[in-house]
Every structure is written in structure tokens, then in C-alpha cells.
């Protein structure tokens, strides 16, 4: 798994990056997706499930993880956008459902599966998913900066009423962003189980979903913020793994995953104290109902 310094430093980037990006897309359109951890957990299961049943192909399994993420996103957006249920409660519910379901289904449906293949082809000892993540961030940046669709997503997150008046279908925009975002989260999960840890254990996501959630807030809801945030955090994990191998600890490992959480509290509190805008979409978590 840990082969050479460069790749091990960045091997976690698809997991953190894609999950952060997915959650970001949901939040930008005004839907708190606090089930990131659970959707990733379900992604880890669905990747392994597809690997076992649909012919041992990592590419196909990753795609299956993506598809099931899409399904969970559909459920989330039906409940939160169509039925206007409270997003925090639904998020908690989906978190427990998907995490529990992942463990439950794995232990009832599958024998213990090991992924033996390595994922390739590699360029500069980094696998295709790394470049896919980079490309996704680039596309996202382009989407929000230069396209009508990106602007529609931002508008529904900031002021759905105005967006509706301007002729944007708020429900549709939220539905699509939530589904796509959740699909990316599922993909991140299945990458974690298929490529990095090469198997399934219960609770293998181990807080990375919440880290991704924190990174969105830490990046203050900007594409560049979440990109550099997740890159920096990936780098920290890489350093941690290196140092653990050498037997040096600069921080107890328990504190690794929560660095972004501390960052979030500082960033949000500071933004409040200084009277700056934290950059949070104004209608994040707010229901929209047509009158």
C-alpha cells in the first residue's frame, strides 16, 4: 500500500477530495448533507459488493459505488427538497441508515472479500482516480465561475425565491446537485474500500466523512478553499503515515482526523467575531416552498 513517498503522501486525496467536493455541491445548492459519513460508509460496502458479485473489476465497482451514491442522494433530496423534511434530522437518519445498512448487508451477504488487484494505469505513481479528482475540482471551478448552471446552483443556495422568479427550477437544481454530490461521496467511499484498504471493515470510514464535512465549512464554501483544504489535509495524513512508519509522532493519532474540526470552530468563530461573512450559502438548510 505505502510504496514510495510521493504517492503515499497523496494516496488519500481521492477519498478526502471527492467526499468534500460532493458535500460541497449539495451544500452550495442549499441542502445540508450531513450524512456524508454514512454515504461514504455505504460506498465502501457497495464497492466491495460489486467487486465480489460483478466480476472483480475495480473500475466497474467504483462506478457501482457512484450509482448507489446517486440513489442515496435521490432519497435525501426527495425527503428534504420535495417533502421539506428537516434536513438535519433526515441527515442523521440517513447517516445511521446507510452506515448500519453497510455493516448489516456486508455481514449477511458477503464472505470476507479481499481486493487483490492494484488499480492502474499509474502516472507518476499516482492512480487515475487522483487525476479524476483534480479534474473534478477543475470542472467544478469552471462550473461555478463560468456557466449558467453553476450560477443557478449558487442562486438556489443563496436565495431560492429570487432564483425561482428568474425562471430557475429550484427543486430540479437542488435535486440534481444533491444527487450528483452524493454520488461523488459514494465514489469516495468505494475508492477507500477498493483501492486504499482493499477490503471492508465496519466503520472503516473512521470519521473521514465528518472531516470532509468540516473541510467544506473550513474552506468557507469556496471551490479553491475546499480544494486547498482537502489537499492540505491529505498531506497531513501522508506526513502522519510516514512518521508513524518511522516511529515518530508529532501528534497522537487520535487528533489527526479532527484537525479540520478545530479549524472549523476557529474559522466560524473568527468570522463571527470579526463580523465577516463566513461564506455560508444564505439559504442553506432553509426549505423552499412555492407560494
Amino acid at each position: 500500500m505505502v510504496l514510495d513517498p510521493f504517492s503515499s503522501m497523496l494516496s488519500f486525496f481521492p477519498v478526502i477530495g471527492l467526499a468534500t467536493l460532493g458535500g460541497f455541491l449539495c451544500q452550495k445548492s442549499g441542502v445540508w448533507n450531513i450524512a456524508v459519513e454514512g454515504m461514504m460508509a455505504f460506498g465502501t460496502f457497495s464497492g466491495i459488493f460489486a467487486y465480489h458479485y460483478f466480476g472483480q473489476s475495480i473500475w466497474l465497482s467504483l462506478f457501482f459505488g457512484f450509482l448507489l451514491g446517486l440513489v442515496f442522494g435521490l432519497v435525501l433530496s426527495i425527503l428534504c427538497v420535495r417533502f421539506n423534511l428537516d434536513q438535519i434530522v433526515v441527515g442523521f437518519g440517513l447517516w445511521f441508515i446507510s452506515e448500519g445498512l453497510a455493516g448489516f448487508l456486508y455481514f449477511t451477504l458477503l464472505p470476507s472479500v479481499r481486493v487483490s488487484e492494484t488499480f492502474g494505469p499509474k502516472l507518476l505513481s499516482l492512480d487515475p482516480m487522483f487525476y479524476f479528482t483534480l479534474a473534478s475540482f477543475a470542472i467544478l471551478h469552471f462550473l461555478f465561475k463560468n456557466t449558467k448552471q453553476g450560477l443557478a446552483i449558487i442562486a438556489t443556495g443563496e436565495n431560492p425565491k429570487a432564483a425561482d422568479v428568474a425562471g430557475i427550477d429550484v427543486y430540479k437544481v437542488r435535486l440534481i446537485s444533491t444527487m450528483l454530490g452524493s454520488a461523488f461521496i459514494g465514489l469516495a467511499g468505494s475508492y477507500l474500500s477498493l483501492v486504499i484498504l482493499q477490503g471492508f471493515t465496519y466503520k472503516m470510514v473512521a470519521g473521514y466523512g465528518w472531516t470532509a464535512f468540516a473541510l467544506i465549512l473550513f474552506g468557507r464554501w469556496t471551490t479553491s478553499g475546499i480544494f486547498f483544504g482537502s489537499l492540505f489535509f491529505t498531506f497531513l495524513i501522508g506526513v502522519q503515515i510516514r512518521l508513524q512508519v518511522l516511529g515518530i509522532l508529532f501528534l497522537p493519532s487520535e487528533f489527526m482526523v479532527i484537525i479540520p474540526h478545530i479549524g472549523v470552530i476557529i474559522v466560524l468563530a473568527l468570522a463571527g467575531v470579526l463580523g465577516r461573512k463566513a461564506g455560508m450559502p444564505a439559504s442553506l438548510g432553509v426549505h423552499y416552498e412555492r407560494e
Partner: protein
Amino acid sequence: MKKEAFSDTISSLLYILSALVITLGLSFMISSWLIQRNLGDIIHFFLASSFGSTDNFLRMLTRTTPLLITTLGLIIAFNSGMWNIGGEGQIIIGVIVSTGICLFLDLPPNSSIFLAFLTSFLVSGVYAAFAGFLKAKWNVNEVAITMMQNFIVIALLQWLIDDPWNWGVGLYPRTDMIPIGTRLPFIYHPLNLTFFVGITLVILIHYMLNRTILGYELQAIGSNIKAAFSQGINTSRLITISMLISGGVCGLAGSSLVLGEYFRAQAGITSNYGFYAIAAALIADNKPMLAPIASLLISIICEGVLGLAALGLPHRLGQVIIGLIYIVIIFPKAMRWFRRSV
């Protein structure tokens, strides 16, 4: 008017019960198909673990107590319109503080029990009030802050039981047992004194919310903060106070876990109670008097699913069922099936 409210409460209770039965029934049917076992067996094992014997029943009540206390804590915050989802972290603060006091302060047992409860309440309250203060003063989103706090404190506990407070050779992530004198006595094994603490808190909090000025003001800012402000209620002070009490009560749940149930701090000591209590508070419709029933229901599910492990059914099923409950409970509210909210 009063009669309508009453019939609405009845119909929403009926809804909740039937929704629970349907959710459980469906999950059992699916799992009986998955593991190829008789549905009757599953229901039998599920119920036996809570109602099979006096011992099981009392154990279930013991497990309910911390959940009940946490639910009460959250209800205070929810009544004042604060989304305190930091219950998990607040319990853990209580766990850390109580374990620390009982293990490392060499006090007479009774005073260390008293001090453990008091300090847990204060530390955990101040810890939660931090989020309330940020919200009140600068309108910082409390959902984000309390959630982030959870993970910081979970990591803190994990570090403490892995390293400085670890007992023995580090095989198990847990601390030493607290001295025998500081363990709360059993009323009737395995039911212990914390059960009475829980029941007392139900009455106290019911009284506080419905019969005192503070409670009135808390409910006022919960139902309409702008109206409350224009009536001259100091909203920012009240938001902080509401989080202080809410977090403090959740901290008491932590001390009761240490002093009454586990007698040490260990990994997974909270069993997700901080999060499950949100579901319980939703079932109880933010009413302290309904909290015992609500937390009992959640607890029956948790225990029942542990019993199903004997059939080879992974107890993760419990997590799925409670997840479903979250969604099922809030459904009628959005659909406006009842005049009053559920």
C-alpha cells in the same frame, strides 16, 4: 381548543406507535428473508432481551437512564429553538470529568460522587454554552459548532484512554475502575440509583419548562425569537443559558454512565446515546413528561437488536432501524397531517 389539542396528541402518539411497529415489522421481515430464519423466532428474541426476565427488564431500564437524561438535556435546547446536536460530546465531557475526579482526587466517596455530578454539570454546561454564546452574540451556526465539538471531545476521550489514563498494558482502551466507594449503589441489581436521578430530572425539567419564568422565556424564544425580543426578553443571554443547562444535563448522563454503569471510562461508552437522544426527543415531541416513554422505546430497540445477535443477525440492524425512525417521526410534521406538530 383544549379538546382538539388532546385528540391531536392521541393521534400523533398512535401514529408514532404504528409507525414504529411497521418499521420494525418490515425490518424483521427483510432480515428473516436474508438470514433464512423464522419471523416468529426473530420477534421472540427481540422482545426477550427486554422483557424476557426481571433481570433483562431491569438491565434495559438501566440502559435507558443515560439515554433519558440526555434526551431531557436536548429537550431543553430544542424548546428554546437551539439545535443542540452536541449531546454525544457533552456526555463524554461528563464521562471524562467524573472519571478524573473519582480516579485521581483522593476525596471521601460521598463528596467525590457529589463533586463528580456537580463538576460534570458545570464543565459540560460551559462547554455547550460556548456554542450558545457564539450563536447568541454573532449568529454562528450552532449545528456546525456543536457537531465539530463532538468529534474533538471523542478524540480527546480516545486519546486519554489510549495513553495517559490507560490502565494496564494498553491492551484495552479503558481506564482503571473507580474506587468502590464512589460507585453508586444498586437499588436492585442491575438497576442502580441513577434511575432515580433520571426520574427526578424529568419532574424538575418539566417544572422548570412549564412553571417558571425561565422556562416560559425559553419557550418564548423557541417559538418566536423576534417576538420574544420585542417583549423585552434578553434573547442572547437566554440562548446561552439554555445551552448551559442543556449541556449540563447531558453531562450528568456522562457521570451516571461512569458512576452507575461502567465504573470506568472506556471506548464506545456512550453507545451513540448522544445521537439517539435526538430521535427520542423527536418522539417525545420536546415534552419532558414524554421523554421516559420515548427513551424506553429507543432502548427497547437497542436491547432487542443485541438479543437478535444470537440468531446471527448483525446488531447494526439497530442503527438502521433508529435511522428509519428519525425520518418516519418527522414525516407528518412536514405533511401537516395533524393540526399540531408531532
